[in-house]
């Protein structure tokens, strides 16, 4: 008898629970899962919000909705009244921000809102676009499966675009709130019917202050400790007669920092250990000759040295530090570390760059 009662109650609980109206979830057909969110600057209080929703291939490539609002949630509610489906952010992957909005310093509020929202995953990428995010989302791309798939594929980590910082919501919040670091994000440009990652957007505290090119983006990745980097073209000698060009694929890199622990007279030794293979070489050197080979290694080393030194000087001038160089002083400092201390260290720091370069192979012919 007890077993019968138990079984009845159990079966009722299992099967009848499906009849509860409250438990009825939205079916997939009734939901518009937003994949890309675009934000454009209108004025200090308003922004243009554009949502891109992927469609089943029979309906069309991508559906976009756009509205003006002052808050993200307000915009989504407004868009819900023009959309035929329930708008949900659960599938969000990319947030496109126009450059003006990034410069306005309001990006923090938007990302913080997304970070707070538990339905949004931590892997959502923050990307700055040159002109308008709305235009980028609404543009037609012949030969592409739609902007959502196109952008997702474009921003996927690939060996040849490892200069891209792939800034997720977590990375953005982390770098914004970590006093030793400034934020960098990928920077996209709409070029005719193509989207291109042309560089890296650079922030100082909450505002975007400039754009670095791909090579500089790559150097930042090296300094941040990235192991594998894309092939880089190195011009060894600028003069036309003696000009040499090398394409090096950095198969392994290692960076080591050593600070003098003194925030009043900061000195930082940066040692880069690079290992690479030669892809392509244009010049007069005979690579099978060990002297020529050693000379080329030295030239590549000098080139990297000057590039890193120039980048560090540029960052110092812009008073920003996406690498987190002042962490090497913070870790020896007692008491709270602040943005002011970071500025003090990075502005007064003497950087001593040491590069060790080893060319591992030169291909299968002499």
């Amino acid at each position: 008898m007890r077993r019968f009662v138990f079984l009845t109650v159990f079966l009722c609980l299992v099967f009848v629970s499906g009849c509860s109206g409250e438990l009825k979830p939205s079916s997939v057909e009734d939901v518009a899962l937003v994949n890309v969110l675009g934000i454009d600057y209108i004025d200090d209080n308003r922004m243009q919000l554009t949502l891109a929703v992927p469609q089943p291939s029979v309906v069309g490539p991508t559906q976009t909705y756009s509205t003006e609002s002052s808050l993200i949630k307000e915009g989504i509610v407004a868009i819900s009244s023009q959309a035929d489906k329930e708008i949900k952010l659960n599938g969000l992957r990319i947030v496109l921000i126009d450059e003006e909005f990034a410069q306005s310093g309001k990006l923090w509020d938007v990302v913080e809102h997304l970070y707070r929202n538990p339905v949004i995953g931590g892997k959502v990428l923050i990307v700055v676009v040159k002109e308008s995010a709305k235009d980028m989302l609404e543009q037609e791309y012949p030969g592409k499966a739609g902007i959502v798939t196109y952008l997702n594929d474009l921003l996927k980590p690939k060996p040849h675009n490892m200069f891209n910082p792939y800034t997720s919501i977590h990375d953005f919040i982390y770098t914004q709130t970590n006093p030793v670091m400034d934020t960098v994000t990928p920077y996209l440009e709409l070029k005719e019917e193509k989207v291109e990652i042309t560089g890296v957007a650079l922030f100082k505290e909450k505002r975007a202050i400039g754009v670095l090119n791909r090579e500089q983006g790559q150097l930042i990745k090296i300094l941040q400790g990235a192991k594998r980097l894309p092939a880089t073209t190195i011009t060894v000698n600028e003069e036309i007669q003696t000009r040499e060009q090398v394409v090096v694929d950095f198969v392994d890199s290692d960076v080591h920092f050593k600070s003098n622990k003194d925030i009043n007279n900061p000195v930082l030794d940066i040692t880069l250990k690079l290992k690479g293979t030669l892809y392509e070489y244009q010049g007069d050197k005979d690579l099978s000759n060990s002297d020529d080979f050693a000379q080329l290694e030295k030239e590549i080393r000098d080139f990297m040295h000057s590039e890193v030194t120039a980048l560090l000087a540029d960052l110092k001038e812009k008073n920003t530090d996406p690498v987190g160089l002042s962490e090497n002083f913070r870790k020896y400092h007692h008491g709270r570390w602040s943005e002011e201390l970071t500025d003090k260290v990075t502005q007064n720091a003497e950087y001593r760059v040491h590069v060790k370069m080893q060319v591992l192979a030169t291909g299968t012919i002499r």
Partner: protein
Amino acid sequence: MDNNKLKKLNGYHVVFLVQNSMIGLGLLSLPQQMSSMGYSQWWLPIMFGVIANLSLIPMIWIVKRYPKDNIFTINEKLVGKWLGKLLNIVLILYLILFISSILEGYLDLIQIVALPDRTIITPLVFFFSVLLYVVHGGIKSIARFCIISFFLTGWMALFLYWPISHGDISHLIPVSNFTWKEFLTASRNGYYSMVGYELILVFFPYIINQQKAFRQASIGVWITVFFYLAVTIVSVMYFSEWQMTEVLYPILKLFQEVELSFAERIDVMGISLWVMLLLSTSAAYLWASKKGMDSLRANNKTYHMYIMAILIFIFINIPFSKEFQEMLYDRVFYVKFAIILWPNILILLHLIRSGRKRAKS
């Protein structure tokens, strides 16, 4: 079966009972609780482990003197019948409050993360059905449940690999970058997650090899410390100090970093699996409160457990204001602290009593 035997807990049971009654809701927010110390918080779990281990000594000492009694009976024997009963009532109220606080915290989290568009009453009913089922089987059933929930959830520590590879190990130094005030705040808030091992005061009579109970309970404590230490170190590496203070459930964000080709949103899965840890913790506490009720009414009845469960259910559903709730759950801490120190008082009373006895004889 050994239902009629009093002693039924073997060594493994003791280890996992202690360990699983400690890990519950506390771990989810542990790095945030200790955030006043900033990056220097990572070694605190080791200190907690030492304190927990030291405070286990008087607990085991006193219960070894009364190998067939639990804390409720010992209270009555040492403090006096009526004062003892009064203390036991306070203890039972504390247990009810404690279970309510962790269940409410977890259900709030589940509502936010996994079931945002539903009310929480249905999951609560299901939770209680399983909870009662586990507690119904007695302490051995709870101990077995603790073992299974350890193996079902312990492997999730592997998910820490992703945040480790993303984090910065240099955050771990300097080790002593804090003031005394920050240290005390972090210790007070963090130790909240350590409690649970004091339940050995209730289940000690059921342990088969009572001589080895201290060692087994210590192993349980240090398994917990291992998990706490791992989570705290990884959080320190992965977050900025601002994030450590502001992010309420750091583990949720750590799980979000996981990248698997065949599954998304590991955080939702992880938080849902966490129910095993919550069930084992609250089952041990519910069983302890049932034992308290048994000793109050001087008989052993199954319906005591249902009364306790109903009281907890009602308590969770009373719409107290958030401030009142927070104040109440905050005050529970002092009761916990008192319970951990209480065995020292009992030892004193025991020594006085046995001294008197000796003088008489």
